[in-house]
């Protein structure tokens, strides 16, 4: 009927942030938004989680940094980024102009460094912080913090003291018991859990007879890891009461639904952005169509239904 607005069945409330839909971007796969803004408005996304930001510029690992694998890819980028000051001065204004809801992925080598980045992001338009304690590609920081409950508690509580914005803690799957780590983050004050970061993998070049990546190992992402990610979201949903941001190989709206049914309130698309720059847009419109076809008034009614 002319003049009638279609009900947005994807409106999502996450950490008291009103999001237009539950579709966000996985840190590291979307830069700081500039490149993809050429394809679609960043305001079309529930949120943009930008590439990790560290206290000072980090150069990253020596090439070769990437390798395609069966149904996925390995990366050992090493968190190359221009540092938090540059981000605030150059990238955040662009994102504000684009009316993007911004989540910043926070990186550091030490607890103090995580706290320093957090402090600098106070009194900015950043909607939430995502604590990166799960990157396998940096020698200190990253995964080193995320594999034991004590260090998770230390870094989360230090950051929580400095942050006015809600704090999402991003977990690695490279742990013995993801539920334990999630509980430690919850106890220390996390407001949400995002998972999974990459699995650790390797590819060997049989011509050179050496690992392809300069760093030898790297993070595996893409459709191949999705079953592991869905399982972990399912487990964490049972372990903590915090809302979950689920990711790991999502490339279609059906994939997104698996994560939501497993317990995710919000999802992120990562590697699939490289396969098809419009993946997020297609998922948004297909999720809306799915809700219409199934008479679902709001997608949030599907969160965790696989546990019933």
């Amino acid at each position, binding site marked *: 009927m002319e003049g009638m607005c279609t009900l947005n069945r994807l409106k999502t409330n996450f950490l008291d942030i009103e999001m237009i839909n539950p579709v966000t971007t996985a840190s*590291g*796969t*979307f*830069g700081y938004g*500039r*490149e*993809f803004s*050429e*394809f679609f408005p960043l305001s079309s996304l529930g949120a943009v989680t930008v*590439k990790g930001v560290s206290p000072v510029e980090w*150069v*990253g690992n020596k*090439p*070769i*940094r*990437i*390798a*395609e694998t*069966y*149904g*996925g*890819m390995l*990366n050992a*980028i090493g968190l*190359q980024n221009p540092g938090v000051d540059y981000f605030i001065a150059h990238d955040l204004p662009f994102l504000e102009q684009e009316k993007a809801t911004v989540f910043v992925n926070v990186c550091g080598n030490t607890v103090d460094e995580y706290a320093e980045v957090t402090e600098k992001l106070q009194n900015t338009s950043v909607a939430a912080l995502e604590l990166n304690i799960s990157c396998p590609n940096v020698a200190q920081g990253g995964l080193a913090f995320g594999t034991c409950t004590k260090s998770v508690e230390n870094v989360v509580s230090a950051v929580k003291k400095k942050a006015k914005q809600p704090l999402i803690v991003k977990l690695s799957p490279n742990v013995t018991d993801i539920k334990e780590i999630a509980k430690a983050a919850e106890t220390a004050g996390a407001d949400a859990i995002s998972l999974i970061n990459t699995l650790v993998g390797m590819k060997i070049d049989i011509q050179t007879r050496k690992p392809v990546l300069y760093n030898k190992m790297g993070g595996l992402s*893409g*459709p191949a890891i999705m079953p592991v990610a869905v399982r972990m979201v399912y487990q964490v949903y049972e372990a903590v009461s915090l809302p979950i941001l689920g990711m790991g190989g999502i490339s279609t709206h059906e994939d997104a639904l698996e994560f939501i049914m497993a317990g995710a309130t919000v999802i992120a698309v990562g*590697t699939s*952005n*490289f*396969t*098809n*720059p*419009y993946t997020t847009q297609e998922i948004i419109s297909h999720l809306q169509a799915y809700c219409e076809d199934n008479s679902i008034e709001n997608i949030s009614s599907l969160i965790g239904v696989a546990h019933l």
Partner: protein
Amino acid sequence: MNKKHQQVMLKRNEAIAKDIYIMDLAVQSAQQSVDMYMPGQFLNMYVEEKHTILPRPFSISAINKDSNEISLLYGVVGKGTTWLSKQENGKMLTILSPIGNGFSVEPHDSVALVGGELGVAPLRFLLDRYKELYPHTKVYVYLGFKDAPYDLVSFEKADELFVAVENADTENYFHGHVIGVLESHYKDIDMYYGCGSKGMLHALQTYVQHQEKPLELSLDPRMACGIGTCMGCVVSIKDEFDTIVYKKACADGPVFNGRDVYFE
């Protein structure tokens, strides 16, 4: 020109040598005009081979303004290119094009285009553009191959074409490395361009440094996203303070000032 994510029609997909193909793609005029493409630019090809994730980048080897077509020269080296080599005329393919910067084209008296194996691909476009814009510029082309040359017909417009083959000794071509041919057939050149393996580019850089002439190199490291987001394709470049920094070959290149490229 802004890159466009678009469907193009396959018009030709022909093997010109073992595992070497020429592909012609028709761009829809409503989407884009290939007039604005620059030699040195490349495109992302989103192959449909199952379980592949990443686009495959290819240098643009030629354009046809009348038919609004793009030509690519590619080698079959893995899953994606194997799939591509089997596609038939009429197939709609998804590309993102054009990406990156181009070679500088200026009215020099003479230029040298130096290419190795599939590095010859963008040099064909560069030759065509020189002949179109600056017909008085003498264009000398030096191409090097390991076992057998290919696509030489695309370089017929060159004022002189030198072909070097490393592993074969024939009457028709020079036997040896292309840089050796450059050295032994000295010409007074105003500007050099190079595209090929790291080893060849490094040798070219050294040679041109001795000549004290300008040089542009097209770099082609492994790429993932191809659009400047993932930081996968970084190359080492000297910045304005002579510090070596990482630049993205896809977004800051693929063409760089030859003097600034740092080869480890």
